[in-house]
């Protein structure tokens, strides 16, 4: 896959569109700000959430066993999957045993991570993503570009065209109300006809063996109340120890994600419906390894709210697709390299280290520090381009020799002002593409000091 800078540059070629994308996401960030300012105890909540999640990661095997025991006691089937392949096989196995042909799925980035849809489709199972944003990208045969707002990068005109083509809605329609109503009608049929519902899991409670699914649209609840089979897919890190901890997390989640005080539905599933079946699939897929890493363990705190993406000035101006990873943005740039460092080596560098992500993260992951640590790992693994390695070596060498450093500086200051413009500004000068170089002063500070300042 092309690197982030290449894809980002492509994205920015359409400047107007890039601005539109940037402003759409900034709008969500501002809504988040308004919402959190309403709670004077906001920083305290973040601190508690961070501590609770640290506890979870440091006691994960015990909590998983506790969760499994309590879930089973309520009649839930609990499955364990080491990786994406096993996860898909388990889900397919359950569906096959029930002769399921039509599945409705509510938002689950985990199933996206496992590429569950194409897997099931190969077996002739119809699987419909019922979150409106996810359904839109499904119709386009594309992945989501944001973990909470999958279609944030798509304009309403494009959705109108898409719906006209796929659903037969009016040509040229752009009214979100009309388009949403059309989706409501079509997806309502899907809910009615489905044999099974698949959901993600926002929080699983070790103490009770239950789990919570949060949506604004009600699609998870329609998908699971209208039929007898519910499969919930979760990453092993999604546990919280006690039901009371939900008080903290449900106050943080929606405010961080979209600036709402809470999602429209926060559904708590404890055991299957009477005469129904509830399955939970616990997925590892590299999480257990991250839990062992002192540097990156904290990334498992993530509750997938997307706040880091909304605040990231780079994400806003490059779009989710430029990360070429299931989860984009700051958290994706930490998780991606953990999964495949070589393929995702450009991601930790897709960051100006501004630190905004760290300050909005509801579970206080030190995102920008982890990105910096990844850069070190990438160099240690020999994945840094030679040009970067060499230039840094030379720079360091020069900086250890003050006279050499002074000489180089002086020479540059002497020569550059006399060079013709085309020699300075050309394709070898990435700085100079859209910026002027600084003026070269005659004297450096230290030269001025020597000349004008008596004391050494």
């Amino acid at each position, binding site marked *: 896959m092309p690197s*982030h*800078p290449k894809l*980002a*540059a492509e994205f*920015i070629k359409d*400047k107007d569109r890039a601005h539109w994308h*940037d402003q759409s996401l*900034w709008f969500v960030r501002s809504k988040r700000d308004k919402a959190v*300012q309403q*709670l004077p105890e*906001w*920083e305290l909540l973040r601190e508690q959430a961070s501590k609770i999640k640290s506890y979870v990661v440091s006691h994960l095997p015990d909590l998983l066993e506790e969760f499994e025991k309590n879930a089973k006691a309520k009649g839930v089937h609990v499955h364990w999957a080491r990786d994406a392949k096993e996860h898909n096989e388990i889900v397919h196995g359950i569906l096959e045993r029930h002769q399921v042909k039509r599945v409705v799925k509510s938002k689950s980035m985990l199933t996206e991570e496992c590429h569950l849809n194409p897997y099931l489709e190969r077996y002739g199972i119809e699987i419909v993503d019922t979150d409106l944003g996810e359904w839109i990208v499904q119709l386009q045969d594309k992945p989501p570009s944001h973990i909470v707002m999958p279609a944030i990068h798509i304009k309403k005109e494009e959705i109108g065209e898409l719906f006209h083509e796929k659903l037969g809605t009016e040509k040229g329609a752009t009214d979100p109300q009309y388009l949403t109503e059309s989706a409501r009608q079509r997806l309502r049929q899907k809910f009615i006809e489905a044999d099974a519902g698949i959901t993600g899991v926002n929080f699983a409670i070790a103490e009770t063996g239950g789990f919570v699914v949060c949506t604004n649209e009600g699609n998870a609840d329609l998908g699971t109340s209208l039929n007898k089979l519910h499969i919930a897919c979760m990453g092993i890190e999604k546990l919280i120890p006690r039901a009371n901890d939900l008080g903290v997390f449900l106050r943080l989640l929606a405010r961080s994600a979209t600036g709402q005080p809470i999602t429209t539905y926060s559904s708590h599933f404890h055991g299957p419906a009477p005469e129904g079946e509830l399955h939970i699939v616990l997925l590892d897929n590299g999480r257990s390894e991250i839990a062992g890493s002192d540097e990156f363990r904290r990334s498992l705190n993530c509750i997938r709210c997307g706040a880091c993406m909304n*605040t990231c*000035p780079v994400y806003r*101006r490059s779009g989710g697709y430029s990360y070429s990873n299931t989860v984009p943005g700051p958290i994706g740039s930490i998780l991606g390299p953990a999964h495949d460092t070589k393929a995702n080596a450009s991601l930790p*560098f897709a*960051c*100006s*280290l*501004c*630190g*905004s992500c*760290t*300050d909005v993260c509801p579970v206080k992951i030190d995102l920008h520090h982890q990105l*910096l640590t990844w*850069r*070190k*790992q*990438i*160099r240690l693994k020999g994945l*840094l381009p030679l040009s*970067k390695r060499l230039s*840094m*070596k030379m*720079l*360091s060498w*020069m*900086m*250890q020799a*003050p006279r050499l*450093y002074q000489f180089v500086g002086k020479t540059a*200051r002497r020569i550059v002002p006399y060079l013709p413009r085309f020699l300075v500004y050309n394709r070898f000068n*990435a*700085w100079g*593409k*859209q*910026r*002027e*170089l*600084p*003026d070269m*002063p005659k004297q*450096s*500070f*230290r030269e*001025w*000091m020597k000349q004008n*300042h008596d*004391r*050494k």
Partner: protein
Amino acid sequence: MAPKVGLFIPCYIDQLYPQVGIATLKILEHFGCDVEYPESQTCCGQPMANTGCTNEVGPLAKRFLEIFKSYDAVVCPSGSCVSMVKNHYDEYFTDNPEYEALKGKTFEFCEYLTTVLGVDKLAGRFPHKVGLHQSCHGLRELRLASDSEIVGPPFGTARALLESIDGVELTTLQRPDECCGFGGTFAVAEEAVSCMMGEDRVHDHEQAGTEVLTALDMSCLMHLSGIICRQQKPIRVMHIAEIFAECL
């Protein structure tokens, strides 16, 4: 006896923006500091660290400690360089009391003025609309001002000092602390995003009526003024030390 201040001048200020160093020196001496500029200093190593080349940083970190350890205070007109020394040198020094001491006495320029020298008002006049760019390291690494992300009471050393100058009118930005896009090697490695970010900052200042754009970090200003010059915008770019010095 006045405390001995070691003046730490970032490499790019030394070579490209000496006037910022001169202004810093002038202000510190104006407030009675006994300032020394150790000539053997070069670079804190931030570009290498930010590229993941931490083994190139070790020798520079050790040099830095040797050069500056015996001063009572180390003052630098750059939030990002100070953050490098205080927050990112730990891995090069284990159980080193000299380094621990250095951490406690290294200051960004405005921070030193306000918290150590107790300066809360600057004399002189600067009758201009000033746009304060909140450099990210000073803001979110050194916590020299409150940011828009964290819920809490607003505060800020640079803003307070600027507002104390007669005639200064601070402009109101749409995004008060969005990153300028410099980011070190990011400015070149992700050139398209970097420049779009810088352009957007400049545009924000334009709509706010900024006449003089200032910040704690010359690196941000180098990037923003590069764009301002290329686009020939009538915005003057000055490091905050230069504003203070001009008022004297």
